[in-house]
């Protein structure tokens, strides 16, 4: 049996918790965790360092509380979904009636670009809905930008506050939200002309361009390898599912490489493309892999076709369109 505000709820109980002070944060989160422990539910804390410290300070070494490294768990939306789904499946297999997770989703206030996390917050309503999960996403109103808070209000069907839990009238259907989401801003490197431009690109040519550019950068070898996989998958998808010609542009910085692959097609029809493994949707698995291994991925459809942007290294905060 599920307990607390989520009692009787089927699937994912997805709550945003907006707070303006440390005390307010603790007033919302601590009872959520204590009730979970009391009910014998798997209760997980996946927060950034300062918030984890606050919880540890308030709850001491509360038996049963599991702490996961927030930065590792929330490195990328697609891998966060993959890891979280695997963890949830394992708890359900062990007989859990409900799993409670409090998790800090990154945003520009914590130094991370928001665009694909906005997609994440919408997509998880679908991606976690086959589990009895009560997930609480705290957002610090002192540091979270207004546009992020606006997206948070559209992507969470529930709101938690110190006063209690209630449904959110501003929640939008995830598919509609994702369709309306505007194109993500370009990387600052894109203000300059690309260092490589291929007007008709094969996977091998894309890999060669990345390898050459990487030789003059400080991007770690493992991340360059991941970008090689990503550009190959993107070019293959463009050839298989898009429309010619398949164009590649590459901007090389010291700390990062930015690659865009464009074709004249309409891009993936699946609104959740890239965030969940879609074995049956055209190109879905390739997109999902790209999203798991790049430091930033954006996709946009414009008048001249579909463009996917992939970043390796340390992504810059995107420019405002």
């Amino acid at each position, binding site marked *: 049996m599920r307990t607390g505000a989520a009692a009787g709820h089927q699937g994912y109980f997805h709550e945003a918790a907006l707070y303006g002070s440390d005390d307010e944060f603790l007033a919302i989160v601590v009872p959520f965790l204590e009730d979970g422990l009391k009910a014998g539910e798997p209760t997980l804390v996946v927060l950034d360092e300062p918030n984890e410290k606050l919880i540890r300070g308030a709850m001491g070494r509360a038996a049963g509380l599991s702490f996961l490294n927030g930065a590792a768990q929330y490195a990328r939306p697609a891998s966060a979904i993959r890891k979280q789904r695997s963890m949830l499946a394992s708890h359900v297999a062990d007989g859990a009636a409900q799993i409670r997770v409090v998790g800090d989703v990154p945003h520009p206030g914590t130094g991370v670009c928001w665009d694909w996390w906005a997609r994440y917050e919408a997509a998880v309503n679908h991606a976690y809905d086959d589990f009895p999960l009560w997930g609480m996403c705290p957002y610090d109103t002192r540091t979270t930008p207004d546009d992020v808070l606006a997206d948070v209000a559209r992507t969470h069907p529930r709101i938690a506050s110190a006063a209690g839990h209630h449904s959110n009238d501003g929640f939008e259907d995830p598919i509609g939200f994702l369709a309306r989401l505007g194109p993500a801003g370009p990387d600052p490197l894109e203000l300059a002309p690309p260092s490589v431009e291929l007007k008709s690109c094969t996977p*091998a040519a894309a*890999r060669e361009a990345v390898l050459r550019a990487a030789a003059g950068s400080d991007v770690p070898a493992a991340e360059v390898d*991941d970008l*090689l996989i990503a550009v*190959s998958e993107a*070019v293959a998808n463009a*050839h298989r599912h898009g429309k010619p010609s398949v164009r590649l542009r590459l901007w090389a910085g010291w700390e990062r490489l930015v690659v865009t692959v464009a074709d004249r097609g309409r891009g993936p029809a699946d609104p959740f493309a890239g965030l969940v493994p879609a074995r049956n949707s055209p190109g879905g698995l390739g997109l999902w892999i790209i999203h798991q291994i790049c430091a930033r991925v954006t996709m946009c459809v414009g008048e001249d076709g579909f463009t996917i942007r992939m970043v390796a290294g340390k992504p810059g905060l995107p420019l405002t369109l």
Partner: protein
Amino acid sequence: MVVTAVGLGPHDHLCWAYDDAAEFRDRAIEFVTEGLAGGYRICYVVDGESARADLAGLEGIQDAIHRGAVQIDSLAERYTAGNVIDPERQVEAYAVATESALAAGFAGLRVVADATHLVGSAEQLDAFARYESLVDRYMAGNPFSALCAYDRAELGDHAIAQLACLHPNANSGATPFHLHSSRDADAGELELSGALDMVSHEVFPLALLRTDPRPIGGELVIDATGLDFVDHNSMLAISELAGRSQATVVLRTSGPMPARLIEILGLCNVRAEPPG
């Protein structure tokens, strides 16, 4: 990838997709000349009457033919031309020929064959590709080397790629990857090299089917030290091979990509490990 047929050893198996007859003849003469110098018996198998003309300029050719060092056969004599090849029987025939060459005092057998006319239909091509893989397994352990020539214009790039990928060596542009028997049994049963991406999306699964490898102790070890790139579709094809073989495929590689994709795709029947 090779640019000539020079410098090949007793177990080499070279595929040469040629664009014109002169190119084929040049490679054949390189291969035969070195074979004779190495003490191998040469078996020259081509269609029609061109063979004697091809070799006419070779110094000492008449003497070599006379003492049995060069045998010139037609395709119909050596293979079941026009029909679908029986891979096992053909390998057996070459094994007998290799033993016979050894018994006659030669260092082994070296074959030059233009097999273009043996792979015209889809059924012929499939059987011949299986034969190429099977005979490669024999070559890996016996002093039998071969130059397999195919006419690119007549067969087309797709058919050429299906054949060339099953050879350890091929000329430029014939295939982006190679899957063949390992020449070093300690390194693995099969050796996989080159790049596996969209370009080999159709040919690689076919190659895996045609190699029909035999797992040992529940494992199928592939020496992938020469594998430069692999995409997720190719990793899924390897996982399907593992499923078919009811074995775990072990990819020996120092490259990070197979392990990365195995983890992301959650493949339970494929493992990547550093070469021993």
